[in-house]
């Protein structure tokens, strides 16, 4: 049952489907067991939730599904630590716990009327996917939508079926790259920051949202600055070690800002002011 007065208590949820994205990444489609929980869990793209594997522990994950598609939540994760390893063992039907949603999320309302440029690397597409699909489901509200996405290899590209769907749409532009192709890859090769500089997107009326490995983000930020993007135009979502998710346990701060309640979404100007290291 939902426990509105105790934010530490998760609600039971069932894993409905597990999709293998890459050799080390899976997507989990999850639904609350209780209808009230399902109805009460109202989230924005870019927010996250704490997932429990009972007996193993809890960890925060960005919600990769969009609130514009109701009834379930999706989380994509690499097999990394104890909680992700336990989740990766699951095949569907298992019970986990969810509490949240937490964090500020992307300012999708402020983006209305703007052109959007999403720049993702590897599993960093997971939080972006929520915003991308949200904007596609509300397509009329947004200007041009462009996605630049890359991974180490073709096998490491996540959400492949969706990438194909996006590629077929005529109301968005998708540019893919891989660091190194395999025998069958006919697309671009090279790093994401390099592709950004080749494509030279115009900063005019654009908000750009980037998420990926720290080295990619650092180089993308340098490149965007060269292309004339202001710090306020660049939005990213931060990752810090978290426990409580509700601003109490004191661990995830960047300067005075707690990533769990004040973030995880910041623009680059805010991050610079906080003294955050990217």
């Amino acid at each position, binding site marked *: 049952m939902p426990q509105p007065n105790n934010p*530490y*208590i998760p609600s039971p949820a069932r894993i409905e489907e597990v999709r293998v994205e890459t050799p080390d990444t899976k997507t989990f489609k999850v639904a609350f067991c209780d209808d009230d929980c399902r109805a009460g869990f109202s989230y924005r793209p870019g927010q996250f939730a704490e997932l429990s594997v*009972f007996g193993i522990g*809890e960890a925060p994950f960005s919600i990769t599904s969009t609130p514009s598609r109701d009834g379930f939540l999706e989380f994509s994760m690499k097999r*990394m630590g104890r909680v992700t390893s336990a989740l990766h063992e699951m095949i569907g039907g298992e019970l986990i*716990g969810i509490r949240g949603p937490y964090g500020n999320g992307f300012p999708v309302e402020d983006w209305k009327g703007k052109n959007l440029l999403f720049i993702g690397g590897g599993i960093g597409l997971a939080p972006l996917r929520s915003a991308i699909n949200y904007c596609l489901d509300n397509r009329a509200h947004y200007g041009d939508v462009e996605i630049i996405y890359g991974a180490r290899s073709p096998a490491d590209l996540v959400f492949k079926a969706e990438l194909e769907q996006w590629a077929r749409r005529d109301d968005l532009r998708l540019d893919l790259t891989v660091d190194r192709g395999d025998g069958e890859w006919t697309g671009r090769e090279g790093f994401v920051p390099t592709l950004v500089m080749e494509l030279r997107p115009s900063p005019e009326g654009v908000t750009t949202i980037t998420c990926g490995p720290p080295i990619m983000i650092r180089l993308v930020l340098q490149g965007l600055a060269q292309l004339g993007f202001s710090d306020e135009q660049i939005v990213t979502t931060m990752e810090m070690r978290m426990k409580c998710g509700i601003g*109490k346990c004191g*661990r995830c701060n960047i300067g*005075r800002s707690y990533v769990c309640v004040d973030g995880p979404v910041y623009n680059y100007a805010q991050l610079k002011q906080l003294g955050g290291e990217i």
Partner: protein
Amino acid sequence: MPDYVIGKDKVAEWLRRLGERYAIYAPDADGIAFVRTTDYASALSPSGNTRRPPKELFLPNSQVLLTFRQGEQGVEITQEPASGEPRLLVGVRPCDAAALKLLDVVFSQDYSGYDDPYYRAARAATPVISLLCAEPLEGCFCGDAPAVNLASPPADAALTDLGDKYFAEASSETGEQLVAAGDGLFAAASDADRAGRDKAAAELGRLTREGLPLAQMRERLRGLHESGIWRDLAQKCVRCGVCSYLCPTCHCFDIQDEAFGSAGCRYRCWDTCQFTDFALMSSGENPRRDSAERLKQRLCHKLEYLPDRTGMIYCVGCGRCVRLCPVGMDIRETIEALSAEAQAAATQEEVSGAPAE
């Protein structure tokens, strides 16, 4: 708020009466921690402060948050009842009373949008009677801490030793009720009693004032985030975590599961930013990978970040980290060195017109 006096020979009877309503916790004879006692005559020990601050009665070292049982039908999650046992803390020093107020802010709804029901329930069920220290311990600097009020600490009732009697200020409705339980034992305070209390508080303030610029550090630390001074200051640290475990305002915690078969519990336990893996992510990224970064986190959290969020300074000058650090790191020296560095950098900036390297 109304003021009273109570003769020292009557305190045991007062606490005995309160003991019928509350489990009474007071400093143990060895000065280690607050423990349950029925030895009412010696509950108000005049010795120095306890090694372990009373925060553990509200944020225990380890605390179960929930239990779970997984079965055929699903998972049953049971919220661990927040402790509502009526307790009374007696003899809390003004620094620790101030620290509890600072913790109240962190665990409040207003602070982060979420209330902490376990902390709140424990606080609501536990009134605090403070006692002004007879004399400071080595390393005490509460006189420099803006959060500390020695004359009127933020307790339900505040006691000050006036020789053969205690001055008692009831600072809350609960405090009034505590005094009312001592019906016939208290007398109204006189102006001379009030003057005695003020004198004792002023004297302790004088003895514990070193002129540390605690309130100024919020601004001074801003320019030091990239400074090399953290490396020099952190060199001695052995990462034992004592400074934060025994700090009355440190509150960082970890959350872990423990299970036997299909049943188990989720608990939280103290953690410290001084441990190497505190901010280590499963990806291997660690934003605070060396002791310099970790010292910066601890000092800035108390003196810059939390003041930015709350307007209050999260060091109450209790001196525990000074007295109990195994390698003699002294937060007073650290603050002085940081302050001097910040001022030197500011002077440099004024002279050259550009931020100092």
